[in-house]
């Protein structure tokens, strides 16, 4: 993928090829391409001179470094106790119904992916979700769908 190639080259020009730059570089690719393709991972391994297996090992370890294709907007709905206690499941159903996708899937227009996440750190304002880096709290099914509608028009 030539796009990620130039992204990677640009990154190492600015920050160097040290192993400590692996996570920041992978994050940079996710920011632009929404996920880490096999080609991108191989390119990173080649550029940073790290075995591809170790790049893959690190990438697959972290929840926010997706190695599966993701849409432009990744919805992460918190699923831990405090959110669960505030009817998280109803919100999940509403989003799922609205976007016509299940957890782990991406809409056919490649705009949205739906995931569940472990504690987002908003338990006092549960239930909470993130869309990319943006946080939304005290959700109701209607409110969640409304937010996603606004993203849809972006």
């Amino acid at each position, binding site marked *: 993928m030539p796009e990620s190639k130039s992204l990677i080259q640009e990154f190492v020009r600015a920050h160097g090829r040290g192993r400590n*730059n692996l*996570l920041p570089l992978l994050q940079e690719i996710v920011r632009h391409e929404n996920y880490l393709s096999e080609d991108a991972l191989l390119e990173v391994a080649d550029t940073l001179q790290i075995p591809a297996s170790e790049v893959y090992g690190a990438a697959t*370890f972290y929840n*926010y470094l997706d190695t599966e294709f993701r849409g432009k907007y990744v919805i992460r709905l918190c699923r*831990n106790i*405090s959110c669960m*206690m505030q009817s998280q499941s109803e919100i999940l159903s509403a989003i799922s119904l609205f976007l016509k996708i299940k957890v782990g899937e991406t809409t056919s227009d490649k705009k949205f992916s739906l995931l569940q996440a472990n*504690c987002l750190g908003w*338990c*006092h304002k549960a239930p909470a979700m993130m869309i990319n880096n943006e946080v939304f709290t005290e959700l109701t099914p209607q409110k969640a769908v409304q937010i996603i509608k606004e993203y849809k028009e972006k």
Partner: protein
Amino acid sequence: MDALNQKRIDLIFSNYTTSRYQVLKRTLQRSPDDIINELMDAGLKGRGNVGFPTGIKWKFAKREEASEKYVICNANESETGTFKDREILERVPRKVLSGMAICGYCTGAKKGIIYLRSEYAYLKEQLQNELNIFHENIKEFNLDFSIEIFLGGGSYVSGEESALIESMEGKRAEPRNKPPFPVNSGLYGFPTVVNNVETFVTAQVIFAIGAEEFVKLGTDYSSGSKLFSISGDTAKPGIHELELGTTIEEVVNQFGDKNTKSVQVGGASGFCIPQRQFAETVIGYEGLTTGGSMIFFNNSRSMYKVLHEYLRFFAEESCGLCTPCRIGTQQLLLGIEAVKRGDKPAEYIEVLKKLALNMKTSAKCGLGQSVANPFISILENFKEEILY
């Protein structure tokens, strides 16, 4: 209720705008030994979960002879039910940065890093703006110390200090064998102090008010106050600063919904305290050591669902490195499901209990070791709910 109101404190979020880096400036006039001694006099213990004396940690790092040293602020706040570090970084970041700079001054570290969990990426920009102001100030104070932000990749176990360091080195966040401890050999093998966000703030508070005032709060073993993240079945969800040494009963009287049957203290890795133990359970290092997560459950809640969710969480977040944790978390989850379905007899719970206790002694890090905490405390107090 009056008793608890007396125990409500406002140190961490107070006096923010009036004393911009003045406490830092003042403290840097003192000698490192003098500062570390004050921390020890104050009896400050780590506010993450473990409770290691902060002054001793700094002293160990100071003693090391090395060309480089690091100060890391652990902001990988991922314990379920806690959100106080996020609130601190959002509302009083200067206090955190001051605590880190004083630690750098005492230990001889010139570099500080904030390990910010990816869920808090939205904070990065405003934190960076504050860092720019901080760096200007620190130049005036003639201290060679800079701080940068490292964004985590999203993993619970990264909160374990050696796993956090591995992650910064561009690897899977798998905990290291200890010893050596990070104060001796941490980031890139250099002496490294890793403290929780709240620990740095509390250190700053101690330098602001003095150890003498600080020890007036709390108990002999647990001096001072601490932030608690309160959620679940409560009319007052949010962050509350309380004196250590408070009992669960006092907290429930204040925050419960009059129907509280149990409180989970310390999140997934913590303990379930049932109603009959509310009065005798003290929050502090002599009783329940906690990072501050408190989730209230009332009579309408199924403790089976609660335990099931914690086990699912652990099975997902286990790094997979050591067998007791990797296999243990999965088997405990499958086990309670099988008992609930009736595929396994009730006595099977005893086998699972043994497994959990085994993990406590044989798992490599705090994650695997602490699975027994919720498992046994929920099981012993709500056995019927788990079985039937």
